[in-house]
């Protein structure tokens, strides 16, 4: 818990400095909530995704332990990515359960990406229970470089 100093009259002589402090404070609170805190669930739809952009490619990662590659269905249409899958329960016979925390069932999640995707260039890798999708930007969505002609 940060101690927030109550502004004295002297601080108000420069209102911009006070606004700057407030902005920094808000950024910090926001980072706490979005970071590792218990509220960091994002959309709240399974699976949790990490998405980042590296030079005209979008990389989507999801933790899907115990899923089989063939049980995950990935489809891309224009700028929408859809994921579906199922983790089946392994029924064990003649055993008594001490703990059963691993969830089984189906999921479905769609994500709108910031631009259209070159569907033919999509790559999917599944390793150690982590799904990694690489989605390249569609050619027509890339910015065009305009060169200036010398007169």
């Amino acid at each position, binding site marked *: 818990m940060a101690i927030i100093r109550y502004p004295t009259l002297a601080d108000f002589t420069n209102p911009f400095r006070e606004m700057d402090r407030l902005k920094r404070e808000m950024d910090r609170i926001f980072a706490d909530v979005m970071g590792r805190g218990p509220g960091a669930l994002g959309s709240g739809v399974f699976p949790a995704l990490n*998405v980042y952009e590296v030079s005209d490619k979008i990389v989507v990662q999801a933790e899907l332990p115990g899923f089989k590659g063939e049980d995950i269905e990935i489809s891309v249409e224009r700028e929408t990515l859809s994921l579906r899958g199922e983790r089946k329960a392994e029924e064990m016979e003649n055993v008594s359960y001490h703990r059963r925390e691993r969830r089984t069932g189906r999921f479905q999640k769609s994500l709108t990406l910031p631009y259209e995707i070159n569907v033919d260039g999509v790559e999917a890798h599944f390793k150690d229970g982590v799904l990694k999708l690489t989605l390249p930007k569609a050619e027509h969505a890339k910015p065009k470089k305009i060169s200036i002609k010398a007169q």
Partner: protein
Amino acid sequence: MSEKDLQVQAKQELQTKSESTRNVPIFVPAVDIFESANELTLLADMPGVPIENVDIDLDNDQLTIKGTAAAVQEEGTILLREYSVGDYYRQFTLSNVIDRERIQASMKDGVLKVVLPKAEAAKPRKIEVKVS
């Protein structure tokens, strides 16, 4: 939404007083533990942990499982961050007597499986009631 739909569960961070030297979060993996007549089987969800980074230790009746996440280089611009990557740690106290020579561990699709065979002495023995 049917009962069979998977729900997002926030990864549970380990609550401990001692700090790890690596600055990564440590999570408590979700586990299934079941017992059959001959063995105790443990399944733990540890996505992102390659088999060579798994450490299993049985000290007396304390079973410790540790998984170190493969190093991820974060690059580019983050657009969405719904989970964080870190290590896994969990400890159990076993009530059964385990034959430690025959413990087997395997890792598949991010799920660790540890088979702990019961020692001969701990296996249930059928006691026949003699009719006199």
